[in-house]
């Protein structure tokens, strides 16, 4: 980690303080620049911890502002114009934060891009970076030293004003230009966190949208108090990491301690150790983060934990799995963790980040819903199919219903699924649940979730057509998710969009299908990538492939080939199922219907071939 962007580290022995005399302002700024200017008046800031849990770079918001202004002047001097895009490899480092904010002072749009996350997949990773840079017509690319080789490869032949490392940028000798000041309606950044990697579109977020969301999170969502401190391992190339744990803390003047995502993945207990050591109060994670902590904690580690300061344990980013969350609470109860700290939430990058937060102090609230209603097999005409349970304790249901280990509930032949309340929409939003015809549904009726509010994106960058498919002229965003409202709370049951989420990573079926189509002999339309529920409701990426081969030997070889191809191109392990020719369902316009394919495969109407 570089120390270039850091205040004199020789004197620093402690992270930035939690408390400050600066009166807190909760995101009521016209732009992110104004927000940082204000935060810089105080003593709080951001801190970066090493893989071994030692304090590395410490940067107060005042130091961040100085460094960002210096970067901004340089960018202007180099000839970057307002609205230009700069691709930034989003490592969890002070340099990334400085550069992201430096772009703001030059009215240039930073575009955070991902890091590799696993063994293998070099080509897929480089291609992804390149496609994203092309899609936003980036004029520069900046990244950490360690990623230089990949970046150069990804940027090869692109017309860039600068491509290099943060250190190389620092060392450039150029005349400095005049800083600009963005207006509230200007774009602040582009986000690629949730889109297809093969056909990327950057989500365009204005300063106004960002500030509205930061305000909603700080003031209404987590309701910040004096001794709040945020701890995070979420990546900056994901909306929950970038907005939730970096920009929202800046806009609300909160100190944050960061652990790199890859270090968390290797040694997840560092997260809880940091919570203990720095008396963290707020942290967010998708379900899988809670899962790996509960699975990997040892007796020794447990003894040193004190999680009693933990006030907001945000859950979001993927479908919330109640059994996993309960297991975490049970596991860490003796370390002082309270299950009422759980704050299930709902959001998406198209809304900057947050849409709704659970009411603080209530923990997980759960509905039991008849599986047949969820699958659409029986109509949802009355309240009969919604049974209510509070915090996993069955309340309004008959006593002969019992929770089974696989997390669904059965009464005679009826199976119920636990659906988690994702909270109350932030005040800025109007929210509709609509049926297939677009009519607004009453509470307790399942439909598609639409929202309208200040923090909805202006659109996908440079892509009016895709924008128009999800965002109406009067500002309603089709979230693509399905759910229902009950007593003002939003219950999300799944996605109408076909996205597949595994361990918090979004995979787009068209990317997986495209990969398979590259195998000679494969035709588009032969392949459907879908998400099926696994043993404990985790998602299992599954690919249905129409197959004309007759012997099991040939089929086995094909399956192996498809698996490898998807792994190397799309970077995901999929279950492959071969199905007979002409069995994948089509829509009336002849397009493949993934949702029907999924339904029919689960119902057994489409049968898998043996291999």
């Amino acid at each position, binding site marked *: 980690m570089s120390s270039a962007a850091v205040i004199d580290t020789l004197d620093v022995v402690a992270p930035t303080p939690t408390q400050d005399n600066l009166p807190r302002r909760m995101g009521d700024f016209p732009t992110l620049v104004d927000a940082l200017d204000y935060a810089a008046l105080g003593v709080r800031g951001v801190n970066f911890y090493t*893989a071994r849990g030692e304090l590395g770079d410490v940067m107060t918001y005042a130091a961040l502002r100085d460094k960002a202004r210096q970067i901004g002047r340089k960018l202007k001097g180099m000839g970057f114009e307002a609205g230009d895009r700069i691709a930034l490899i989003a490592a969890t480092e002070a340099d990334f934060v400085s550069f992201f904010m430096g772009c703001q002072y030059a009215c240039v749009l930073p575009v955070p891009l991902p*890091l*590799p*996350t*696993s*063994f*293998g*997949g*070099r080509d897929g*990773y480089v291609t992804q970076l390149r496609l994203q840079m092309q899609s936003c017509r980036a004029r520069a690319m900046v990244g950490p030293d*360690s*990623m230089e*080789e*990949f970046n150069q490869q990804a940027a090869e032949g692109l017309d860039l004003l600068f491509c290099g490392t943060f250190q190389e940028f620092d060392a450039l000798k150029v005349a400095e230009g005049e800083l600009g000041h963005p207006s509230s309606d200007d774009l602040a950044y582009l986000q690629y966190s949730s889109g297809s990697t093969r056909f990327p579109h950057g989500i365009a977020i204005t300063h106004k949208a960002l500030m509205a969301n930061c305000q909603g999170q700080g003031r209404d969502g987590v309701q910040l108090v004096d001794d709040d401190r945020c701890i995070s391992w979420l990546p900056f190339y994901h909306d929950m990491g970038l907005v939730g744990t970096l920009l929202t803390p800046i806009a609300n003047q909160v100190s944050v301690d960061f652990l790199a995502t*890859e270090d968390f*993945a*290797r*040694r997840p207990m560092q997260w809880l150790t940091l919570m203990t050591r720095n008396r963290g109060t707020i942290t967010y994670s998708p379900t*899988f983060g809670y899962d*790996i902590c509960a699975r*990997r904690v040892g007796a020794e580690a447990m003894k040193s934990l004190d999680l009693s300061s933990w006030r907001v344990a945000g859950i979001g980013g993927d479908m919330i799995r109640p059994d996993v969350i309960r297991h975490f609470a049970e596991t860490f109860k003796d370390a002082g963790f309270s299950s009422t700290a759980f704050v299930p939430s709902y959001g998406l990058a198209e809304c900057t980040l947050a849409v709704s937060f659970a009411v603080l102090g209530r923990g997980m609230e759960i509905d039991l819903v008849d599986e047949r209603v969820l699958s659409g097999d029986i109509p949802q005409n009355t309240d009969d199919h919604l049974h209510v349970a509070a915090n996993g304790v069955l309340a309004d249901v008959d006593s002969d219903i019992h929770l089974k280990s696989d997390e669904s509930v059965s009464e005679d032949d009826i199976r119920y699924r636990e659906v988690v309340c994702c909270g109350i929409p932030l005040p800025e939003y109007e929210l509709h649940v609509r049926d297939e015809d677009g009519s607004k549904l009453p509470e307790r009726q399942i439909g598609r979730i639409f929202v309208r509010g200040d923090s909805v994106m202006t659109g996908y960058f440079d892509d009016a057509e895709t924008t128009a498919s999800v965002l109406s002229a009067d500002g309603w965003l089709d979230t693509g998710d399905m759910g229902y409202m009950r007593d003002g709370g939003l219950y999300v049951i799944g996605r109408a969009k076909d996205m597949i989420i*595994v*361990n918090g*990573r979004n995979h787009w079926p068209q990317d997986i299908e495209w990969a398979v189509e590259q195998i000679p002999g494969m035709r588009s339309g032969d392949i459907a990538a879908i998400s099926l529920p696994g043993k404990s409701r985790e998602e299992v990426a599954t690919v249905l492939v129409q197959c004309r081969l007759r012997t099991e030997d040939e089929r086995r070889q094909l399956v*192996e080939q498809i*698996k*490898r191809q998807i*792994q*190397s191109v799309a970077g995901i*392990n999929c279950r492959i199922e071969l199905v007979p020719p002409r069995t994948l369902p089509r829509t009336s316009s002849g397009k493949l219907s993934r949702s029907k394919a999924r339904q029919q495969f689960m119902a057994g109407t489409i049968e898998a071939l043996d291999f």
Partner: protein
Amino acid sequence: MTNAGAPEGDVYSRICRLIEPFNKKNVPLTPQTTFASDMDFDSLTVMDLVASIEDEFDIVLPLNMLPDLESIDQVARAVQKIRKDV
């Protein structure tokens, strides 16, 4: 990485031992066995394994090496190279 010479049998077999607890499908291990396609490891499993390799050999496997490591043999060579360079 491929021209770093054959890995010492010791490094290879120690890595295989570390893989065993993650090898839920009981895939037979050879130097050419791949983590993603053959063993179906997801990125979390991989990082868990990376942590145990790092502890076993007291090294750090940097993130920028991972995209080039597909097979056990490649990991063994990388580990050996890092140990030499230290």
